[in-house]
């Protein structure tokens, strides 16, 4: 595992092996091998773009859904969490402490579509005892990336 490489990739997953090597003062082959190792071991699970969908598609809606579930004997929350995770509409699934159990982020084309998904798919699952749906009205920051208007560089162009 190499934390310095992870830190760079977390900030910008598109950095090439060459760029990472330069940035960290390492050999390219070394960087390549370490990244491959971290991918193989499952430490790095994927690389994705952070996209401001709402800015181009009027029809993109996401919601956070709180699920209360009855854990199954012998499986705990694993089974239900895995089942929920299978849906392509579901972006993330977390087991939570506190008043509810699973936090599910769902994305759809409209409020209605998301509501339908919750009503038809999630709430009908046998171990789900209740759902609460919170629609996201606006995303200000996601994955450490500011989604607001970019501040202009106030420093000007040249100074001594």
């Amino acid at each position, binding site marked *: 595992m190499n934390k310095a490489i992870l830190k760079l990739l977390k900030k910008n997953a598109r950095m090439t092996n060459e*760029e990472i090597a330069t*940035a*960290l003062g390492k050999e390219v082959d070394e960087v390549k091998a370490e990244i491959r190792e971290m991918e193989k071991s499952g430490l790095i699970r994927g690389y994705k773009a952070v996209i401001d969908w709402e800015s181009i598609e009027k029809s993109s809606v996401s919601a956070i859904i709180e699920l209360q579930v009855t854990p199954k004997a012998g499986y705990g929350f694993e089974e239900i969490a895995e089942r929920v995770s299978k849906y392509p509409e579901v972006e993330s699934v977390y087991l939570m402490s506190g008043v509810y159990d699973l936090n599910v982020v769902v994305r759809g084309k409209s409020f209605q579509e998301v509501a339908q998904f919750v009503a038809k798919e999630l709430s009908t699952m046998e171990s789900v005892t209740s759902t609460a749906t919170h629609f996201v009205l606006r995303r200000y920051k996601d994955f450490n990336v500011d989604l607001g208007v970019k501040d202009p*560089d106030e*420093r*000007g*162009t*040249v*100074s*001594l």
Partner: protein
Amino acid sequence: MIDYGKILTGTITGVKWSGIRKFFDIANTMEGVISLGVGEPDFPTPWKIRNCAINTLQKGKTRYSSNWGLAPLRSEISHYLNRKYNISYSPESEILVTVGGSEAIDACLRVIVEPGDEIIIPQPSYVCYEPITQVCGGVPVIINTKAENDFKVTAAELKEKITEKTKALILPYPCNPTGAIMERKDLEELSEVLKDTNILVISDEIYSELTFGGATHVSPASIDSLYERTVVINGFSKAFSMTGWRLGFVCGPEPIISQITKLHQFAIMCAPTTSQYAAIEALKSCDEEVREMMEEYDIRRRIIVKGFNDLGLTCREPKGAFYAFPSIQSTGLTSEEFCEKLLYSKKVAIVPGTAFGDSGEGFVRASYCYSTEHINEALERIGEFLKEIK
């Protein structure tokens, strides 16, 4: 009609405007420029520091402070200098809080320079030492530091410039624009030249937190034989990304600091109080934030240095500050020609080395206070430019 020429002093009108002011004006008004031109951090001031300032404002702590600066701040500065650079100054009588390092430089020169006095200034370096010396009636004596010496001041160069009129030597290290630092042995060599003289060392250490590649900043004041003749100037702008807060400090022997404080008391009263509270927080609890910024600078430094060298513009490894200082001699252009052409044809802004003294000819300064994506884009454009002028 009033004749302003009769009103203004000959000393200030006699100080030359920087020759590249025009270039700066053009660069600063041109649209769509990708710049490696600024001399200040891109990071916002760490939130802890801003939040602390907000809290003191909310509580209405907005009065003048003591002329010397807030006592807890002076005490923190004393701890900080001890902890970081192994130098010790009394918070009661040897530390003054100033409006940026700039006020400290100005005040320090004003209390020591009389007409005809000589101040030795290594160049290429930051632009303020020469004009302030002149305004005080002093004579700037320039040491043109050399690339082959890693832009350090050597004992021989210093010796050659010392006369009976020499009052002080400015040591602007880590250096803007060259990225040079002075190591312990370099300073010890200078101390040999300076011993038994009445020459003061004015050490501008504003970039002291920014050293790389295993190098650490050595303050001349930490050399035993230089301690009594050194005035240390530092501040919060670069290390804590607090340029607009205008806060610095000056430390040194009590007889000098007390006279600087006298001047400061009449000219300035006190440094901005809000900034002083913020600075206490900076020194107390921001080691981690500074380290994070340093790591990021280091990454950018490696990328920009390799970038220039790959383009065929020889770039030594800068050991301090946040600038690369590549040579453009291989292009056959002067520094100013290079920068102007680059600005007009590729809209990339960098600063000609000559802005920092004649000895900057043949070099350009590229700041790496920018994101790596930004730096890469600028390097790409410089690469295209180099192909076109071949």
